């Protein structure tokens, strides 16, 4: 398929260039799938919801794209879009790093929260973003997610959380750790109010996020082949002094071990979420 097109391009003129060099030359329009190594036309990947058309690998996507893929157009109203940066440890370079990332990603933090509709079904959404410090949870991320959960409880709406995170944010130390407790207890209140929570785990979901709200949804979905776990693979390998088997801590592994409900491909995600929301609709707003 695409690789054949590349080969043709490579043979233009008399010199035959190696594929890898060609891919470097064509950077900008082409990307290489890090899973199947196929050279892909960027626009095609984009149109395919950032899933490799060749092997089905789900590439990481921004919170903005995620929202566009899931929420009905024009219905998303963002909450707390601009919370002040906090630097409790006065960690050297941290504020600058955040500011640079804000500039680069045009995001304020590693999660966007708001209210929106999915085929007309209203829900509160929290969508994490891996481009912002690997989706790590510091005080702002914790606060936004907690607020979103509390808002769902107050408005008697379901909540959907798209998770992608390297875990608690180290630069805010113990304050980051405490966000696990804060988000979790808010989740418990929502639970006690009889409201629905759905967590969607995407690549990667690890550390303090796995060990808090991500593991506590009434229904837990995951994208195919996402890395999901508490400890990172490198830490485990160093501890047990052996190489982890292929697929260890993948979505498929978690499904087999009973920790998630269902693996859902990106193209079906909106439909599946709608189905879940619709079935629970009568239990909300009571």
């Amino acid at each position, binding site marked *: 398929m695409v690789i054949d097109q590349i080969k043709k391009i490579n043979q233009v003129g008399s010199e035959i260039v190696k594929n890898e060099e060609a891919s470097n030359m064509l950077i900008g329009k082409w990307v290489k799938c890090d899973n199947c190594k196929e050279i892909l036309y960027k626009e095609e990947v984009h149109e395919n919801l950032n899933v490799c058309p060749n092997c089905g690998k789900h590439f990481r996507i921004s919170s903005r794209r995620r929202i566009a893929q899931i929420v009905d157009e024009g219905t998303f109203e963002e909450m707390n879009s601009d919370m002040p940066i906090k630097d409790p440890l006065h960690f050297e370079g941290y504020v600058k790093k955040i500011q640079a990332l804000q500039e680069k990603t045009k995001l304020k933090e590693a999660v966007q929260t708001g209210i929106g509709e999915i085929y007309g079904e209203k829900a509160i959404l929290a969508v994490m973003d891996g481009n912002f410090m690997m989706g790590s949870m510091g005080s702002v991320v914790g606060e936004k997610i907690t607020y979103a959960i509390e808002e769902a409880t107050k408005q008697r709406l379901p909540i959907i959380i798209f998770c992608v995170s390297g875990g608690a944010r*180290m630069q805010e*130390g113990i304050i980051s750790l405490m966000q696990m407790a804060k988000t979790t207890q808010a989740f418990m209140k929502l639970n006690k109010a009889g409201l629905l929570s759905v967590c969607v785990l995407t690549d990667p979901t690890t550390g303090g996020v796995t060990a808090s709200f991500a593991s506590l949804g009434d229904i837990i979905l995951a994208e195919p082949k996402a890395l999901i*776990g508490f400890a990172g693979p490198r830490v485990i390998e160093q501890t047990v002094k052996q190489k982890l088997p292929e697929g260890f801590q993948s979505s498929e592994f978690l499904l087999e071990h009973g920790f998630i409900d269902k693996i859902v491909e990106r193209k079906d995600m909106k439909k599946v979420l709608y189905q879940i929301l619709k079935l629970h609709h009568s239990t909300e707003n009571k």
Partner: protein
Amino acid sequence: MSNQLKAWDRVLKAREAQRPKASDYIENLIDDFMELHGDRNYGDDKAFICGIGYLEGIPVTVIAQQKGKTTKENMERNFGMPNPEGYRKAIRLMKQAEKFGRPIITIIDTPGAYPGMGAEERGQGEAIARSMFEMSQLKTPIIAVVIGEGSSGGALAICIADKIYMLENAVYSILSPEGFASILYKDSSKCKEAAENMKLTSYDLKELGIIDEIIKEPKKGIENDFEKVVHQLRQKILQDIAEIEKMKPTEMLEKRYEKYRQIGNTFD
């Protein structure tokens, strides 16, 4: 004077082998202690000692993380690093405490939850999350005491409480200073520097509002005058239980919620 100790010195003190362990606290604090075993699902995690007994005549449930004093005991206890079944044993017995209206005392001393293959297969993240989830709404007083090393989610998992004490030379942090240094400074040998910056001492955490009270340690070393520490702790816990039990359960839970709700909002 001990207020002047460097953070790294406290890390070392918190980890000392001769430092009293959870079993010493149980032995000195609790009468007629009976250990209860197992999570009713998979196994019995020896990194946790859980059970029932009396605190000055009041029936209580104790949930404690246990490091070993000797290499042999440490091997048995997995160096105080729990597996998921440890947290699930804790959850089971905390719910039991709620059923019978017993206050819960949790004792925290762990280098972190065990990052092993089996732990991942059995849902380490879920077990920690579930423990915090359940504790946040348990209708019985919960008192937590950080006695040595309180590291990462593995410690926090049993630290959702109405009152949190910390021994003066204990440490409580997002992860070990070595781990912090290797992630943020790309050099684990910078752990001393990391410890200073992490705000992990009892004094730092009191200031940040993460813990409620510091239990002072005797100048001649906690292991040399342990009775004094236990006496202080006993009096304080008894007073707390009496105070918390005066509240309506809804008020107790609301206060517990607010405690964690405010963390992170109190500094700037």
